[in-house]
């Protein structure tokens, strides 16, 4: 009996969930989203690629010519890459919707533009 009373009470209140994807809440501070590379800061040392626990970072070339490929489908959003970069070239963004139907479009490429 009490349960029904409780249910009716809640029915009349606002829902606790929001109607995602029509409504979105801002991610909290310190949220670890998708890592993004600033290639003007990157020296192409390859440390991020080696340190990534899930092999989500590929580095092609060395130094200034280096190209970074980030496979977001493998990424754990652990932030290790950003932590380890000696030059703060990697920032974690706030976005979290990365799922796609095709894995090929889940690769982000970064290159230094001159």
């Amino acid at each position, binding site marked *: 009996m009490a349960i029904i009373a409780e249910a009716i009470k809640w029915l009349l209140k606002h829902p606790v969930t929001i109607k995602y994807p029509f409504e979105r809440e801002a991610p909290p501070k310190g949220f670890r989203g998708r890592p993004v590379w600033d290639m003007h*800061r990157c*020296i*192409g*040392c*390859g*440390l991020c690629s*080696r340190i990534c626990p899930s092999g989500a970072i590929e*580095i092609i070339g*060395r*130094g200034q010519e*280096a190209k970074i490929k980030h496979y977001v489908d493998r990424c754990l959003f652990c932030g290790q890459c950003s932590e*380890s*970069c*000696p*030059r*703060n070239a990697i920032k974690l963004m706030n976005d979290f919707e990365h799922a796609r139907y095709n894995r090929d479009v889940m690769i982000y490429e970064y290159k230094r533009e001159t």
Partner: protein
Amino acid sequence: MKTSKDLIAYNDLKRRIIDPGFCNLCGACESACPIHALKIENRRLNYTHNCADFMDFCSICYDICPFTEALLFETLGFVANAPNRAEGIGYYRRMLLAQAVDKKLRDLSHSGGVVTALLMHAIKTGFIDSAITSEREKETSIEIRPLLSLVPDDLLSTVDYEYFPSSVAMAFGKAVHEYGKTKIAFVGTPCHVRAIRKLEAWEHKIMNSLRIVIGLTCLWSFSLPELTRFLKERYGIEAGDILRIDMDGKYKVSLKNGKVAAISIPEIKAHTLSICRMCEDFTSELADISVGGAHPLKDWSTVIIRTEIGEEIFEEAVKADVIRTRKIEEEPNVYAHFVRMSFLKRKYATEEVERRKKHGEPVPPISIRLREFLPREINLLSSLKAEHIMTKNVITVTPETTLEGLLAIMTRYHHTGYPIVDDEGKLLGIVTFDDISKVLPSKRGGVLVREVAHSKIVTAHPDSSLMEIYEKMIQHKIGKIIIVDRKDHRKLLGIITKTDIMHVLKWPMKKLV
């Protein structure tokens, strides 16, 4: 195709700095290495694992070592927007004398106690959250310990390997990584300061936590074991009996029993670290504030404020009555001594570099870079003419000025050479700081400029290229060239100094993002 071995800076660091014995264990590379491959232990820089196993490419340790050529001109960007520059002093806003109001601090430091007072106040107001100064190593033996009080209030650098290592590493390795500090004040010798600025110019992420850099003046550092051995063998002085070392022309070693032993510079110089003998920065030219002794005054320090943030922290402390100041103009002898030391250091360094080159001995990359321009720089200097950069409002003196008067002018304007002109403004000669220092302070009131000046002057014309002028400076071993009219060689038009030329070459200001 380069192999990954070539792409690792450590190989160059080892070949050009460590193997020739130029590393003075400042610790900058230890704190900067992203994989912690470098570690100072037992007075050695140890390479703990092969970085090629972790990195594809890395330029860090070589770039930021204070004795390599990398990033030198970039680091000038941190101070170069100061309104004044002078040879031997660097870029600066103002130069003055200061002391801690608290007598306890002055007594502890044997001089003005300014650095400590500044830091204590800045921590109190929250301007900084920590300060990195040098620490002693714990295992220091009793015999060596008293030598720490050799840290001079006056012109001598006695701090050795025992106290040198890891000062920078401690600063950033520990303060940032272990204690999470974010507003750090750094105190160090000119080479430490250069390492910190290089890290900053490299935009290393640990530098986000740096708030202010306070530089000390430094003539040389000694190799402590060598110095103590020498003092014992030659003078029978035990390390434990030494109270302090001062320097005024000679090194004066004061002993606990009240005796003083005087040792000449050339004799003691042999026991300095080899890198120090080629070091040219006396005043920490890249610091926000530089602090040095104020010989012959006992209780004061000479302070050079170079940057806005330096000005801010200093003014705060003055306003809070933590530090009191005096004009340096009131003490021409302090200024004269200070500048003399700076010139002396440069002169010895140049001689040593030349000697080494002649004998085919290794020279640190920084010393080579400071003497040889890159092709791009030569192009720039060849394309610019004297009239583009010369100072036109030249301060001059008359032949009848006394040396005392001249020194007062120098202490006020901080230039070290002045053209001599007659009543009609015609150029007669030049008088420089060197000419003053040849005359004893007590006699300077009675000696006139014309008695000591050179009448043979090296001049150039408004359309001479800067490269031409620079080559003249090197050839004649001088720091300034007077620019005269092509038709009338006694018509003074301007003056150009070596610092003016370096200023042209400095890179645009680069700051952390």
